[in-house]
């Protein structure tokens, strides 16, 4: 804490840990009320959309996978679905199931990393996972085991754990044999038990009262908890085909952020990610995940972002359960991919990345070359919501001492598991109390 004059109080965190990417946070407080809360993102823009122009559409899944080392599958999935839509290609049966399985792997590894290594230390009063591991080695080992189970799925289906290379427009380059998938069963059964234990463990944490009346936005599918497809729905009644996304959502440049801010046209901020997904799709969870959620005290919806750690743990249960079901039903397809013929067209898709809705749109030239690409990542969509959370809650936390307040604000950002690198395309926190 620094004080430039007796009337001004500023808290600054130059390097906020346990978020991906670089950013800063400034909260201005006057007479006990929050006047402004600004998330500043100065991670360099990476120009992926421009980089895709002029490249063959077949390269899109591999190029976009490079946007993120934690959720590359999400980028691959949104890319291939959008391009397939542009080309009128439909992927069904075991290939569709394998894509869903690959996504399960990514959810398990990404959520396990956040629940155990990044978020839990906040609730248990540790500076990070290493400090927590000294006192809770077994817990950290469980988290790492869980992550490993997710990694194993991605490695098998994707060719490697990070930035997989086996996804293509129309399906995969190679599909696994039944016996290869069966090897995942035992670790996934253990992972499912660990995930159930994780739900019970995080349900026992203390949570600040921090509910907010969010507009939740997520995919919704007639009978599945959403990964790869569904309509885009929102808690205020919106229910649209993905093709209409840009008619209802817009991106704005704000000077403080290298990532575009998203908002509902004619509305305001909205929230994507586990809370939104769960609140709009709790009835689509499998029995085991639903029972675990109920036992953890999650209602039909969850409006407290600090409790997102419980939702993530429930989603790990769901992903393990779903993965086991897919493996049990798997029959190796005759072809690793459906035939794809290049043509001019335009297509978009949204899938559910671990951090929330990820929208891609591509315009293709007749030879399939990408003429235009648009990518709207979940953290970019959540920036305004992160600011709104701080605006809404910091006023009630002002009686905390400076360190505790700073920690609480950092935690409010980490609730989102933000991937700032993805969004730009880290965090310096400044609280000016006037």
């Amino acid at each position, binding site marked *: 804490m620094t004080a430039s004059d007796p009337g001004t109080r500023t808290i600054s965190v130059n390097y906020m*840990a*346990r*978020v*991906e990417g670089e950013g800063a946070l400034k909260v201005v407080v006057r007479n006990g009320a929050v006047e402004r809360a600004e998330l500043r993102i100065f991670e360099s823009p990476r120009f992926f959309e421009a980089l895709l122009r002029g490249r063959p559409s077949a390269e899109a899944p591999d190029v976009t996978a490079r946007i993120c*080392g934690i959720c590359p599958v999400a980028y691959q999935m949104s890319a291939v679905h959008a391009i397939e839509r542009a080309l009128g290609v439909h992927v069904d049966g075991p290939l569709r199931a394998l894509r869903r399985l690959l996504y399960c792997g990514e959810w398990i590894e990404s959520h396990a*990393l956040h629940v155990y*290594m990044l978020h839990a230390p906040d609730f248990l009063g540790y500076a990070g*996972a*290493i400090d927590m*591991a*000294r006192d809770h*080695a077994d817990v*950290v*080992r469980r988290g*790492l085991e869980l*992550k*490993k189970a997710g*990694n194993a799925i991605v490695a098998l289906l994707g060719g490697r*754990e*990070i930035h997989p290379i086996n996804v293509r427009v129309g399906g995969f380059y190679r599909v696994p044999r039944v016996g290869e998938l069966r090897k995942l069963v035992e670790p996934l059964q253990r992972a499912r038990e660990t995930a159930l234990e994780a739900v019970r463990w995080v349900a026992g944490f203390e949570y600040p009262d921090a509910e907010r009346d969010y507009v939740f936005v997520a995919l919704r599918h007639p009978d599945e908890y959403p990964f790869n497809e569904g309509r885009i729905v929102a808690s205020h009644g919106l229910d649209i085909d993905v093709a209409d996304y840009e008619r209802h959502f817009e991106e704005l440049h704000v000077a403080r952020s290298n990532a575009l801010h998203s908002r509902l046209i004619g509305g305001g901020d909205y929230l994507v990610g586990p809370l939104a997904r769960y609140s709009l799709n709790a009835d689509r969870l499998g029995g085991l995940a639903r029972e675990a959620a109920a036992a953890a005290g999650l209602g039909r919806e969850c409006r407290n972002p600090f409790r997102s750690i419980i939702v993530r743990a429930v989603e790990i249960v769901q992903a393990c359960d779903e993965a086991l079901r897919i493996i049990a039903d798997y029959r190796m397809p005759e072809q690793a991919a459906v035939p794809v013929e290049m043509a001019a067209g335009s297509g978009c898709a949204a899938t559910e990345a671990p951090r929330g809705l990820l929208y891609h749109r591509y315009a293709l030239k007749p030879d399939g070359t990408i003429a235009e690409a648009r990518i709207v990542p979940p953290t970019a969509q959540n920036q305004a919501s992160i600011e709104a959370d701080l605006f809404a809650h910091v006023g009630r936390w002002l009686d905390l001492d400076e360190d505790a307040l700073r920690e609480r604000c950092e935690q409010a950002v980490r609730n989102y598991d933000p991937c700032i*690198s993805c969004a730009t395309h*880290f965090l310096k926190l400044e609280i000016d109390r006037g």
Partner: protein
Amino acid sequence: MAPLRILVAGVGNPLRGDDAAGPMAIERLQARMPQASCPGVEYMVSGGETGELLGRLEACDAAILIDACVSGAEAGTIHEFDVAAGPLPQRLGGFSSHGFGVHEALELARALGQLPARCRVLAIDAQRDTHGAPVSAAVEAAVDAVVDRVRRQLQCWCTRPVTQPGVSGGSRGP
């Protein structure tokens, strides 16, 4: 008797100038170190992802990690640390942009009781990490010096059990 399982990991991004020092050292070691002379050695090139390194550290009896660093010393300066004896010094920056890298993998391994009893880090001070840039002459020369040190260390570990000395550092290489 089963051979000592030894991990030699080169950490870095081959496409970012001097950050390629670790992967380059692995390439040269594989070319210059006959497998028969040290059968338990496994080479690995790593982007520095904590989980992956942690898993590999748990599965070996001894490890050597080679990485680029930014300590403020002259480019090509070689630092050697016995990390089994204690953590890496804070002054060593790194090229990890994710907050989880080599230091975190080593310290998590230590906290979890998974750090091999013999574990050394060789770090080379980098001059540049520009995308697409070649490795600088000073760092490339240091890579050769590191390769020689690793070969001697491996021969030593493979032929007779030894107690490792403590930290030595700051020698200018080669």
